[in-house]
C-alpha cells in the first residue's frame, strides 16, 4: 500500500483535498478494540519512536509478552493500571486518501453513555466481535445504539481469528447471526471483515491466513466507504449563533448573522425566512472572514447578511420559505439517559437544541427499550443510567425541528439536570 512507504515530500495539494471520516469503535471488554486501533495506527506508520519506546517500557513493566499496542490509546493513569478504557479517547490518522478521526469508546455496560457520545458525531461504526464468543448482548446493544444514533455505515470486525484457526465457517456463522439481528436495525450499509488485530490480519494488509476471504481489508473499507451523500443537502437550516455588529466607522451598518449551515444550501439572492418571526428577506452576502462565498452548505461556518432589516437574534433560525421545519412545544423523542439520577417524570430540565437554550417538563414516558431484544418494556417506566426510552416533553418556547432521521442537527437535543448541571440525556426527535 502506498502509505507504507516513507513520505519524503508532502503533496500539499493532495493534503488539502482529503476528506474526513469520523468513526467510532465499540466492542465489549477484551474484544481487542484498543489493540485494533493501535494496529491501524502502527501499520499506517502513525506511531512515533518516542511513543513506541514509552509503550515498550510500559509493556515490560506490566509483564506483557509482546509490545502491547493497546497502551497507545489508554491515556489515563487508571486506564493503564487496570488495562481498561474508561473514557472516550480521540485518535487521528491519515492515509493519502482520507483523514480519520476515531472515537474509541469503552465497552463496559456502565460506560454506554460514552459509546453514545462517540457515535453522535460518527459517519461509521466499527463493532468488534470476539471470534470465539460470536454475537453477544453487548454486540446487539452497540449495534442498536449505532442505528439509533443514525450511523449509516457499520463494519462488523470478527476479531481474534488467529485463535480459531482462521476458520471460514466460524466467520460465516457469526455473519449469519448478525445478518438476522441487523434486519431489525436501520443501517443499510453493513460490512463484515475477519481480522486479527494482534497479528495484523486484514487490518491494513491483506491476510495470507484467510485466502477464503475475498473482501477488502478494514483500512481499504474505511478509505472507500461512500460518505459524501450522508449529509442532508436538501433542507436548508441555519441556526443563528451570534449577531455580529462591529459598530465601527468602516462597518457602521453591518449586521451579520453568524452560525453554521446544518443542512441544505444557501446562496446570495435566495429568499429566506427567519423563525420564529416568519419575516422574509433575501440574502445579500455570505462570507467566511473576508472571503465572499457563492454558496454555503453543511457543515460550513459562515456569516450571512440580509437585504432587509429584520429582527433576528441568537437561537433563531434561517430557512427557506418553501421548506420549513416543524414547530412546536410538544416534542416526542427517544432519549438515552446518561445520569446516575433517574429521569424524573414531570421533572423540569434545561435543554439545548441547535443554538437555542430552553427548558422543558417531562410530560410522559411511553416505554423503555430492552436493548438486547429491542422489545418495548411498558410495565416498568423508570429510566435510569444507560436506559433508552420514548418520552414526550413540553418546552418553554417553540422549537424548530425536524425528525432525527431526516436531520441529525435539527433533530437532536440534550437534556441538562438543573441541580448538577450534568448532561443527563441525549434526545432524538421522532
Amino acid at each position, binding site marked *: 500500500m502506498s502509505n507504507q512507504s516513507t513520505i519524503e515530500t508532502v503533496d500539499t495539494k493532495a493534503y488539502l483535498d482529503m476528506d474526513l471520516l469520523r468513526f467510532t469503535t465499540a466492542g465489549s471488554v477484551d474484544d481487542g478494540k484498543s489493540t485494533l486501533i493501535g494496529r491501524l495506527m502502527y501499520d499506517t506508520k502513525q506511531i512515533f519512536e518516542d511513543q513506541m519506546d514509552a509503550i515498550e517500557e510500559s509493556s515490560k513493566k506490566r509483564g506483557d509478552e509482546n509490545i502491547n499496542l493497546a497502551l497507545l490509546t489508554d491515556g489515563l493513569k487508571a486506564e493503564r493500571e487496570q488495562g481498561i478504557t474508561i473514557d472516550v479517547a480521540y485518535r487521528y490518522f491519515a492515509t493519502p486518501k482520507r483523514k480519520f478521526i476515531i472515537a474509541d469508546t469503552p465497552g463496559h455496560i456502565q460506560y454506554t453513555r460514552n459509546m453514545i457520545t462517540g457515535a453522535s458525531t460518527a459517519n461509521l461504526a466499527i463493532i468488534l466481535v470476539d471470534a470465539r464468543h460470536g454475537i453477544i448482548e453487548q454486540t446487539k446493544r452497540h449495534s442498536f445504539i449505532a442505528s439509533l444514533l443514525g450511523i449509516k455505515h457499520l463494519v462488523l470486525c470478527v476479531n481474534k481469528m488467529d485463535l480459531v484457526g482462521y476458520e471460514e465457517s466460524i466467520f460465516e456463522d457469526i455473519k449469519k447471526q448478525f445478518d438476522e439481528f441487523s434486519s431489525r436495525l436501520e443501517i443499510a450499509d453493513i460490512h463484515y471483515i475477519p481480522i486479527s488485530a494482534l497479528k495484523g490480519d486484514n487490518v491494513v494488509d491483506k491476510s495470507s491466513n484467510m485466502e477464503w476471504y475475498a473482501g477488502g481489508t478494514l483500512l481499504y473499507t474505511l478509505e472507500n466507504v461512500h460518505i459524501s451523500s450522508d449529509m442532508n443537502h436538501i433542507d436548508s437550516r441555519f441556526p443563528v449563533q451570534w449577531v455580529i455588529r462591529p459598530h465601527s466607522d468602516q462597518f457602521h451598518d453591518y449586521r451579520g448573522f453568524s*452560525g453554521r449551515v446544518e443542512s441544505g444550501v444557501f446562496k446570495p439572492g435566495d429568499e429566506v425566512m427567519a423563525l420564529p418571526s416568519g419575516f422574509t428577506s433575501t440574502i445579500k452576502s455570505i462570507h467566511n472572514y473576508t472571503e465572499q462565498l457563492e454558496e454555503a452548505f453543511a457543515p460550513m461556518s459562515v456569516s450571512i447578511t440580509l437585504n432587509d432589516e429584520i429582527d433576528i437574534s441568537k437561537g433563531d433560525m434561517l430557512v427557506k420559505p418553501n421548506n420549513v421545519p416543524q414547530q412546536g412545544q410538544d416534542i416526542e423523542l427517544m432519549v438515552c439517559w446518561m445520569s446516575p439520577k433517574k429521569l424524573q417524570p414531570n421533572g423540569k430540565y434545561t435543554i439545548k437544541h441547535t443554538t437555542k437554550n430552553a427548558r422543558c417538563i417531562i410530560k410522559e414516558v411511553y416505554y423503555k427499550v430492552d436493548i438486547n431484544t429491542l422489545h418495548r418494556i411498558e410495565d416498568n417506566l423508570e429510566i435510569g443510567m444507560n436506559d433508552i426510552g420514548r418520552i414526550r416533553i413540553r418546552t418553554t418556547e417553540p422549537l424548530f425541528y425536524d425528525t432525527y432521521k431526516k436531520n441529525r442537527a435539527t433533530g437532536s437535543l440534550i437534556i441538562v439536570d438543573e441541580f448538577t448541571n450534568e448532561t443527563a440525556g441525549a434526545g432524538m426527535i421522532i
Partner: protein
Amino acid sequence: MSSFNLTHLKQLEAEAIFVIREVVANLEKPVLLFSGGKDSITLVHLAKKAFYPGKIPFPLLHIDTGHNFEETIAFRDSLVQEIGAKLIVGSVQDAIDQGLVKEETGYNASRNALQTAVLLKELEEGKFDAAFGGARRDEEKARAKERFFSHRDEFSQWDPKNQRPELWNLFNTKKEIGEHFRIFPISNWTEMDVWQYIALEKIKIPNLYFSHKRKVFSRDGVLLSDSEFFNKRESETGTEKIIRFRTIGDVTCTGAIESNASTLEEIINEVAAAKITERGGRADDKRSEAAMEERKKQGYF
C-alpha cells in the same frame, strides 16, 4: 453543480469557529490563553475569522514565566496591536516575589508547574468563566481524553473520570458561579493540520519556528537553548548549531531540533518525516508517564 464536499481542513476550521462562537454566545467572560506558540496563534486567527468584521470580543492572557524567548514577546506584542485586542500578562516572577509560589531549585528546575497557580489567579481575578486553549488531542495521551468544553470546578480541577458527555455539537455550558470551562476549539487538529492551515491561510508565526543559528547545549538527549535560565553543569557547554523549534514554550522546557527547514513547505515535509512526536522535546512531559494528566488535574493548560 457543486458536489458539496468540504475538505477536512475546511471542516476543522468550521468546527473551531463554531465552538468559538458558542462560547461567546453562551458564557459571560471568555479569555484566550496565548502562549506565543503556533497553536495559540492559529486560535487567534480562527477567533478573528469568527467575528469578522467585528473585533475579537475577548482579551488574550499570557502567563509569562519570565523565561521567554525575546522573539515570542516581540511577536505577541505586535500581534495584539494588529488585532486591537487587550492583553493581560500574568507574571510568574511577580508571583514568586509575592510568595504566592516557590521557585523550584536544583538541576532540572523549571517554572512550568508554577504557571498553573498564576493562571488560576488570573482567571479568578478577571472573573473569567471560559478560557480558550490551543491544546490538541493528538499531542499527548491525557489530552486525547479532553472535551471541547472541559468543565473545571471551583478549584479548577479536571476530573477525567467524570467528564460530561459531548453529544453532536450541542455543548452544555451550564455551571455554577466560580466554576469555569477550558475551551479547546482545535481539539481535532493534528500537528500536520496546523502547519497546513498556517501555510494555507498565510498566518504569521515567530521566526523561532524556522531554521536559524543558535547556541544550544544537550541535556538528556534534548537540545536546549543556551541561556542563563538554566542551572547548567560544567559539562553542559553551548555550541552553535543550525536549529529550529517544533513547539514553543518557556525557554527551559522547549527542545530544539537540528534542521535546515526555513520555509513552511520545508517544515511540513520535515513534520511528515518526523520520527518523534512534537512533545518529544518537551522536558515538562518527561517527568513521569502521567506528568501531563497530573498537571491537568491541577488546572494546567
